[in-house]
């Protein structure tokens, strides 16, 4: 009879542990994202290659704004992907299996936009107006925007002997003479992204995926 009593707790343990593992897969996440896996950003990165790829970081390749309620068909560009700059980079090694996609956490995404704003303010202050904070609630933010971005993904594609790091420096070019860290070759806007400066999260309403192949 005693064995019978043990079966239930052990079974319960297995079920809960399994559920926890399933709902907390480690994509591009902060600890906050892992604990709140029920509130993802709804943005994913997908590996369309035939083998597992380790992605070493994400960045905001192109950053544009729209009025709340508008879609991302014709946003106002704050900086263009033509510059190939890794603004808003948040780096962490994440292995993505062939044909699979991984989630980007809503707090992880917030941090990307948070630092990309700094790049704009310092490097291209003459760009179209954006916000100091992703949610546009800093004191000098006079207007609320939503965001449309090209999502960049980093991993060494080809290196010269001089470039042995897994990622380039923050806000430097993602590719240059002798190196290439860009995994993605074809970009489409993700968004509109809305952000909350209280919870430090950014989300899109429905699931959207950027793929690399």
């Amino acid at each position: 009879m005693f064995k019978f009593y043990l079966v239930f707790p052990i079974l319960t343990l297995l079920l809960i542990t399994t559920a926890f593992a399933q709902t907390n897969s480690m994509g591009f996440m902060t600890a906050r994202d892992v604990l709140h896996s029920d509130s993802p950003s709804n943005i994913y990165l997908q590996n369309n290659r035939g083998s597992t790829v380790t992605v070493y970081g994400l960045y905001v390749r192109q950053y544009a704004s729209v009025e709340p309620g508008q879609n991302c068909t014709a946003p106002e560009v704050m900086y263009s992907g033509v510059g190939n700059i890794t603004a808003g980079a948040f780096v962490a090694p994440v292995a993505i299996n062939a044909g699979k996609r991984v989630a980007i956490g809503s707090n992880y995404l917030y941090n990307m936009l948070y630092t990309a704003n700094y790049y704009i303010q310092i490097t291209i202050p003459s760009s179209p107006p954006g916000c100091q904070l992703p949610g546009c609630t800093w004191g000098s933010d006079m207007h609320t925007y939503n965001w449309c971005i090209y999502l960049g993904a980093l991993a060494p594609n080809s290196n010269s002997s001089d470039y042995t790091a897994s990622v380039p420096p923050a806000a430097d070019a993602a590719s240059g003479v002798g190196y290439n860290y860009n995994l993605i070759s074809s970009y489409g806007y993700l968004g509109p992204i809305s952000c909350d400066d209280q919870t430090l999260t950014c989300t899109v309403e429905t699931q959207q995926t950027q793929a690399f192949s």
Partner: protein
Amino acid sequence: MNKLKNSLLYVCLGISLVVNAQAQEQDDSASAFMTGRDIQANATSNISITNGAGQSVSVSGLFIPSFDATTVEEGDCSVCTGGIVGGDNMGGTIVSPVIIGANKAAAIGQNYLYNMIYNGIYYIRNTVGSSPCQLPGCSWPGDSTDRRWCLSINATSLNASYTYSHYVRAPNPPAAAPAYGAAGSSVPIQFDYNYDLINPNTLGVANACLGPVTCNDQTLTCTVATPQSETFQPWS
């Protein structure tokens, strides 16, 4: 009937214990400045933030007010002077809500710390304009490969018991953290706010100067050799 009651009691107890254990695990993760990679690898940098304030405090993020560099040979981080950059500006910020219990310490993950330094270097390059290294691990071409970092780290919060912000812009309440690169606190002349949990005047002197920090640009991690902590407490 009694057997059935006993069976149910054991089952409920088992479930309670397991759920409690699971909740405890989540609390541990919640109390840490970690990326998913850090949690998965259970990889702490050996640096932590200690809550000496006597009650639970909600922290919204960390930043690096001062950067110094030492050499591998000297390995001296006894004092942080802000030799590369100093002040109360939020370079190297990562924002993420973490609750730290009274007299508890929250670990900083290896990859989390790497990202702080990675962004902090960009902040340096746009303020004083010169960093001995372009990447935290000093492996970018032209980097001074023998350098290691000495840091002070501050924490931000809107907890009114220890910080304050009068910066209200109706209809929005104050944000959970200042903008990247802004000051951690600002006197009434401009915005009149204070998000700093640690008095900036004590950082690196009365509070710990952290390091030497060694980073790896292949694994995107940073560590110190022995446990070190930065402590916040009520401002005096």
